């Protein structure tokens, strides 16, 4: 992977015809705001989807109309007005800025700290470049290498056209349209997303990644991701981006479905750093995501997430351990600062025999933020010898933030072994003193301690991601301790 640089990619894209032809003639086409059946049909039509897909979307829309927005998460925010959102936008070829000098210097400073190259900085800040990304995923890189192995990795709208049998078979099987309010909304209006299929017995040779971007103001982002790992295959999938995105008050309601067939393994890593709102808590992205994976016999799904952005996060990557001997893992770091609110956690549903799950959740709250862990471990009566270990640790900085834990544990089988533990603590003055004494300033000392606190999760991230994520933690907490 190291040999292939961004420059190569840029070169490649420059020399290539823009493949996704049907978009090219659309100059920033955004649908009128509002949502009704016509809009749903129009989205489907725009994407040249087959009839069954249109019907599927309509079904979802019908269910969504009947549903109410959930109230139970431990967050408070101004409910988005679903009729004031535009539900479709294609890539805008017009750059936001003409040169990098126009970009907010604060943003550039952050990029600098994250160690992002100048070219990438331009891209991320929306400076004129060859590739500008929006709801429609563009850079499906390394496609050829993958094709050799028979791996399908493309945008979901392409997949609907090129591999309808796979999409039709699996879409909505893990997260049904009527699963919840936001999943239903997503099912009705999803703009694009990624599709990935790993054939039988194939180990995917590289980390698959998509960088999602929110670009146009007022555009809701409805990603749909479907990853299928066929029998005995392995894939590691990266989602997200450490660089901050600066758009305001956008609703993000994504759905991610993972399917690990017998003996397959999926590793799904997320780094999320959307605009969290300013220091007064104005603006910021609402992140309401439904993520779920299904494990067949001997399969394994591992979720790793680093959540630092968004004003409101509401996200529970889950595993349905349906097959015998299947394994589910969840490793999470959630950092909240200023007025951010996060209600995140996982669900482990043990259905098969000898299933195992591990939950490690680290919450760090600073400023005036609220950070909640909400998790469910459910052992069904037939899940013999199920094993679960959960650990949720919270770190509080300052006395205006809050840390909350809501673990639900439901055991219906006597052979189940379940452990749950949670602790809450603050950074000890003696720890800081120890560092200061050795010439490490307080800010660095805190970064050091936070990194140590999060180590168990950071270790689970793929290499390059881990380095960036570490820096990201430092930046997110900057200035949080006087």
């Amino acid at each position: 992977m190291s040999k292939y640089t961004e420059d190569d990619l840029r070169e490649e894209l420059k020399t290539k015809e823009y493949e996704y032809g049907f978009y090219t003639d659309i100059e920033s086409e955004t649908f009128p705001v509002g949502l009704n059946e016509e809009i749903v049909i129009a989205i489907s039509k725009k994407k040249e989807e087959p009839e069954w897909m249109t019907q599927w979307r309509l079904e979802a829309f019908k269910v969504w109309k009947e549903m109410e927005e959930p109230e139970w998460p431990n967050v408070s925010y101004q409910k988005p007005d679903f009729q004031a959102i535009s539900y479709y936008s294609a890539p805008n070829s017009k750059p936001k800025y003409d040169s990098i000098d126009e970009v907010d210097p604060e943003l550039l400073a952050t990029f600098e700290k994250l160690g992002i190259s100048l070219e990438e900085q331009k891209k991320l800040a929306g400076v004129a470049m060859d590739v500008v990304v929006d709801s429609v995923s563009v850079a499906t890189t390394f496609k050829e290498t993958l094709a050799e192995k028979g791996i399908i990795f493309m945008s979901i709208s392409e997949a609907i056209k090129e591999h309808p049998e796979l999409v039709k078979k699996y879409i909505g099987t893990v997260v049904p349209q009527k699963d919840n309010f936001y999943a239903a909304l997503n099912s009705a209006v999803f703009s694009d997303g990624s599709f990935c299929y790993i054939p039988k017995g194939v180990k995917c040779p590289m980390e698959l990644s998509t960088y999602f971007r929110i670009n146009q103001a007022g555009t809701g982002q409805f990603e749909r991701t479907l990853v299928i790992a066929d029998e005995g295959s392995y894939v590691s999938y990266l989602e997200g981006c450490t660089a901050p995105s600066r758009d305001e008050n956008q609703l993000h309601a994504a759905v991610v479905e993972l399917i690990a067939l017998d003996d397959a393994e999926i590793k799904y890593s997320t780094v999320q750093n959307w605009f969290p709102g300013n220091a007064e808590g104005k603006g910021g992205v609402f992140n309401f995501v439904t993520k779920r994976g299904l494990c067949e016999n001997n399969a394994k799904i591992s979720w790793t997430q680093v959540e630092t952005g968004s004003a409101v996060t509401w996200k529970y990557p889950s595993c349905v351990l349906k097959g015998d001997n299947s394994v589910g893992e969840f490793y999470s770091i959630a950092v909240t600062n200023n007025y951010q609110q996060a209600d995140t956690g996982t669900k482990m549903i043990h259905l098969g025999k000898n299933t195992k799950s591990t939950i490690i959740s680290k919450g760090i709250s600073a400023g005036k933020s609220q950070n909640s862990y909400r998790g469910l471990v459910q052992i069904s009566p037939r899940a013999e010898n199920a094993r679960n270990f959960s650990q949720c640790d919270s770190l509080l900085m300052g006395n205006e933030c809050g840390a909350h834990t809501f673990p639900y544990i439901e055991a219906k089988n006597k052979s189940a072994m379940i452990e749950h533990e949670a602790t809450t603590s603050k950074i000890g003055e003696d720890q800081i003193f120890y560092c200061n004494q050795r010439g490490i300033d307080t800010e660095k000392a805190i970064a050091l301690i936070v990194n140590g606190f999060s180590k168990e999760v950071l270790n689970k991230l793929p290499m390059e991601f881990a380095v960036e994520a570490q820096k990201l933690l430092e930046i997110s907490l900057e200035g949080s301790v006087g």
Partner: protein
Amino acid sequence: MELKEKLVSSFMAFEDTVDVHSSIHDIRTEAIKTFETEGFPTKKLENWKYTSLSSVLKHDYSVFPKNENALEFKDIKKYFIHEIDAYKIIFIDGKYSSHLSQTTHDGLDVCLMSAALTKPKYKVIIDNYFNKIASKDGLSSLNTAFSYEGAYINIPKNKVVDKPIQIIHFSTGNEAALMLQPRNLIVVNENAHVQIIERHQSLTDNPVLTNSVTEIFANKRAIVDYYKIQNDRQSASLIDNTYVNQKQESLAKVHTFSFGGKLTRNNLNFYQNGERIDSTMKGITIIGDKQHVDHNTLVHHIEPNCESHQDYKGIFDDNATGVFNGKVVVEKLAQKTNAFQANNNVLLSDKATINTKPQLEIFADDVKCSHGCTIGQLDESAMFYLRSRGIPEKEAKALLMFAFSNTVLDSVKIPELKNRVTKIIAKKLGVNLGFDL
């Protein structure tokens, strides 16, 4: 007629029969209104997610008993901790039984709620304490609306009560189905110390539903030790709402032993209004058949330098269901709080269920809070160790279960009570061992 309508419509009739301080009438009227809007809790409420009352509400309960029923002491002696001398407040079908009770006004008040609510000399205390901390949910409001009888205990400053107080509610089964709503008020003043044992017992298999509310006030440096023995027949259900308000440096402990009953719900709430308070809540639950026990605890840390300890052990067999829903709230001001919560469970059968939800809500940064929760089985190697030394399976199992619940039994301060609980556990586990515990 639905129970709710029946209760609401009986309220007027009930009000006419009782004569209490005028202010109480307003509280009652307010409460019945709240109950009318709130009704009985359903599974839709987050706090009642795992417990459904529908099976206990379906009976046609007579809602306030009219007849006085008498019992002979020899018939019910076994329900007392009779080895020790104690003050006794005994109720039969909700009515006070004077010949079984032993109350006092000598230096302390161990008497009746009905007296406190009617006699002018108690008016100040009732105004200050009655219905001050009970929450305004449907069930507590229902109890408030019908509050008339129960225990009233007032321990004056610096008084160490010489012997424990036993509160026992009997139901005779003379009514086909009976609903009881005892209301207790316990005020423990500065430096005072009291031990209380509470028990509900029905004598036949006629269904009984008890919706009890107890308000406990532990003032400065007071020590309150409260034990609840729940070993009723499987026709009886109990909803126990206990509210404890603590002032600075006070110490309050509530032990709940749940072995019997069809459905038992314990709402146990501690409010710490002062510094350096210590709150302890412990429980042992051993149930089988189709029994259901739900512990719902809340500790509200409001001021700095306080501690709370929770330790709940559960053993579930057959089709039993156990619920533990523990919540610790640490307010912004409550720095230096130490809060611990542990819930350990053993499932003995494939049809038994345990739902546990230990919650922490923390708004202060300089605190030590932890909770742990486990579900598992008895250790096979320990079992083997005992079996290989010639101890039969059943006894070996019982020994391990005793060991499992010993951290709770250990802190019982009345030796006779500890023996009694040990015996109940042995009986429940079907063993006949002379445990030297």
